C-alpha cells in the first residue's frame, strides 16, 4: 500500500520534471515569437496609418521630431547600417579567416592556446569600451592621417565593429576547418601539395559552408551593434552612399538603425490613442522607432536563419 503510493509519487515527480524541462526547452521559441509580437504591436499603429514604403525606404529625410513637417525616411539609416557592416566585414573577414587558419592548421601547443584565449577575450570586451576606443584612439588617428575633417565617421565605426565581429568569425571558422576530416589533409600532402596549397585548394572548398556561416554570423553581430557605432560614427543622418564621387563616403559621418533607436527612444513618449482610436501625431515617433526595430529584427533573423541552414547543409553532406 505504502509502496504503491511511493511508486506513484515517483512517476508523478518524473512527469513533473520532464514537463519542466520541456517548458524550458520551448520557452526560447515562445520568447522569440513574443519579441516579434511585442515589437510589431508597438509599431503597428504607425505601419497601418502613417507608413509610406516609398518614403521609408526611399528618402533620407529623418525628421520625426520636426515642428513643421514630420518625415520618416529611413534610407540614410538603412544605408548607414549597411555601410558600417560592409566596411567591417571587408576589414575583419581576411583577418579572421587568417587567424582561424593559423590556429587550426599552422600552430600547436602553447601558441595555439594563447591565441584562442586572447581572441576569446576580444569577445568579452564590452561594446561601450569599443565605442570609447573609437572615440579616443581611432578618432584622432583618422583625423590626423586622412583628409577627414573629423574622425567620427563610417571608417571609425567600421574598424570598431570589425574588431567586435572578429572573435565570432574566428571561432566558428576554426570549428569549420577542424570539421574537415584529416584524410583530406593527408591526401593533399601525399599528392605533393604545399601546406598553403592544401589550405586554399582543399580546406577552403571543403569547409566553405561553415566559413560562410561564420561570416554571416559576423554580419549579424555587426548589424546589431549599437553602443560602439553610436559613439564612433558621429551620429549624423547622411547618405554614406550616393551618386557623388567617390560614391562610398567612408570619411563622412553616418547613423545606423540601432543607434537611432538607442538615442531617440528615451524621449519618444508612448502616447495612448484618443477615444476614437486615433493616435496624436506625436505618438508616431515612438511607433516608428519600433518599425525600425522590426526591420532590424527581420534583417538579423534572416541572416541567422541563413547561417543555420548553411550549417545544417554541411551536416547533411557529412552524413551521406
Amino acid at each position, binding site marked *: 500500500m505504502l509502496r504503491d503510493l511511493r511508486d506513484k509519487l515517483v512517476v508523478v515527480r518524473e512527469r513533473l520534471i520532464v514537463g519542466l524541462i520541456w517548458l524550458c526547452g520551448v520557452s526560447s521559441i515562445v520568447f522569440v515569437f513574443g519579441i516579434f509580437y511585442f515589437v510589431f504591436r508597438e509599431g503597428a499603429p504607425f505601419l497601418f496609418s502613417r507608413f509610406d514604403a516609398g518614403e521609408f525606404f526611399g528618402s533620407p529625410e529623418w525628421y520625426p521630431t520636426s515642428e513643421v513637417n514630420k518625415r520618416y525616411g529611413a534610407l540614410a539609416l538603412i544605408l548607414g547600417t549597411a555601410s558600417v557592416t560592409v566596411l567591417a566585414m571587408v576589414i575583419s573577414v581576411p583577418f579572421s579567416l587568417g587567424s582561424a587558419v593559423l590556429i587550426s592548421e599552422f600552430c600547436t601547443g602553447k601558441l595555439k592556446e594563447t591565441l584562442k584565449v586572447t581572441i576569446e577575450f576580444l569577445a568579452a570586451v564590452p561594446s561601450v569600451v569599443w565605442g570609447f576606443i573609437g572615440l579616443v584612439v581611432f578618432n584622432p588617428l583618422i583625423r590626423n592621417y586622412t583628409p577627414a575633417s573629423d574622425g567620427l565617421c563610417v571608417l571609425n565605426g567600421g574598424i570598431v565593429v570589425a574588431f567586435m565581429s572578429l572573435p565570432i568569425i574566428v571561432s566558428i571558422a576554426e570549428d569549420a576547418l577542424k570539421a574537415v576530416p584529416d584524410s583530406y589533409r593527408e591526401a593533399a600532402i601525399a599528392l605533393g601539395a604545399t601546406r598553403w596549397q592544401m589550405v586554399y585548394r582543399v580546406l577552403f572548398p571543403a569547409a566553405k559552408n561553415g566559413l560562410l556561416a561564420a561570416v554571416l554570423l559576423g554580419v549579424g553581430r555587426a548589424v546589431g551593434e549599437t553602443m560602439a557605432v553610436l559613439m564612433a560614427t558621429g551620429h549624423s543622418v547622411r547618405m554614406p552612399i550616393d551618386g557623388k564621387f567617390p560614391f562610398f563616403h567612408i570619411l563622412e559621418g553616418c*547613423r545606423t538603425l540601432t543607434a537611432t533607436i538607442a538615442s531617440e527612444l528615451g524621449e519618444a513618449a508612448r502616447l495612448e490613442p484618443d477615444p476614437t482610436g486615433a493616435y496624436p501625431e506625436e505618438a508616431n515617433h515612438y511607433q516608428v522607432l519600433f518599425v525600425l526595430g522590426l526591420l532590424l529584427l527581420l534583417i538579423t533573423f534572416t541572416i541567422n536563419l541563413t547561417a543555420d541552414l548553411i550549417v545544417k547543409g554541411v551536416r547533411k553532406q557529412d552524413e551521406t
Partner: protein
Amino acid sequence: MIGKGSSLVLSAVVSVALVGASGCDSGGTTTDSGGSARTVIQNTGSDTMVNLAQSWAEEYREVKPDVSIEVSGGGSGVGIRDLMTGIVDIANASRTLKPDEEAQAKRKTGKDPIEFTVAYDGIGIYVHKDNPLEEITLAQLAEIYRENGSITKWSQLGADADSFCSGDDIVVFSRQSNSGTYVYFREAVLGKGDFRLGTKDLHGSKDVVDAVAHTPCGIGYSGMGYKTDEVKFLKVSTGEGQPSILPTTENVLSKKYPIARPLYMYTLGEPTGAAKEYIDWVFSEAGQKVVVEEGYVPIPSKSS
C-alpha cells in the same frame, strides 16, 4: 568626450533602477539604512544643466547632510518623460513643457507640473580657436543650420579658409533631438524649421565643445558655461549693421545677447518637504552663487 556614452548609460541605469522604487512623491523618498533616515531626491533631465545640478547637489550635501540629491542627465526630454511617469521628483529642463506634455502629466498623475526658473543660459556659438571669424548674424547662422541652407563653406562667411580649414567645408555640429538645447536652438534660430541633414549630432553639451576644439572646420552651439581655451565664441548680431554681442553674464541678463534662455526645474504639483526646501535653497544666495561658478547666469534677486 566620455560624457557621450556615460550619460546615456547613466540615464538607462537610473530609469531601470527607479522603476522598482515606489513612493516617489514630490517630497522625496525616505530610505532607512542602518538606523539613520536619509531622504533621496531624484533629479533627472537636461544635459546642459547636469553639471550645474551636480554642483548644487554637492553643495547641498554640506547644508543638509541627511538629504541626498541623485542627479542624472539624458536630456530635457528624458527628464520630462520621467517626471510624467512619476519616477523622478524634480526634472531639469532647458526648454518649457509642451502643451501635450502638460496634458499627459495631468492625465497620468492627476497633478499639474510646476515650473521654476532657476538660472539663465546663453547658447554660445563655438568655433575653433584658429578660426579668424569674429562675428556672425542670426540669419547666417540659420543658413548654416537650416535644412537646405545656403551656407556650407567658410569662404561664404568671408573667412579665409586656407588659413585654418583645408577643405573650406563647414563641419556642422548639433545635438541629438532629445536635447533641450536642440529644441531651443531650432526655435530661436531656425524659427521652428528643421535642421540640415548631415549635421553631427552629439550627445552632450561638453561633447560639442570638445568636438569643435578638435575640428578646425567645425562650428557648434552649446551652453556658454562649457567654454574652454581651445575654442572661441563668435559674437552674434541680430542682423547686418546691428551690434555683435558676446555671450557674457551681463549681456544675457540685459537680454542683449539674442540666443539666451531660462533654465527650469519642474515638479509635479507644488513641491513639499525636502524637495521644496531644496528648490528654496537653489533660489537662495548660496544656490545662485553656484550658478555663477558654473558659468551660467544667475536670476536677478528674487525680491525684485
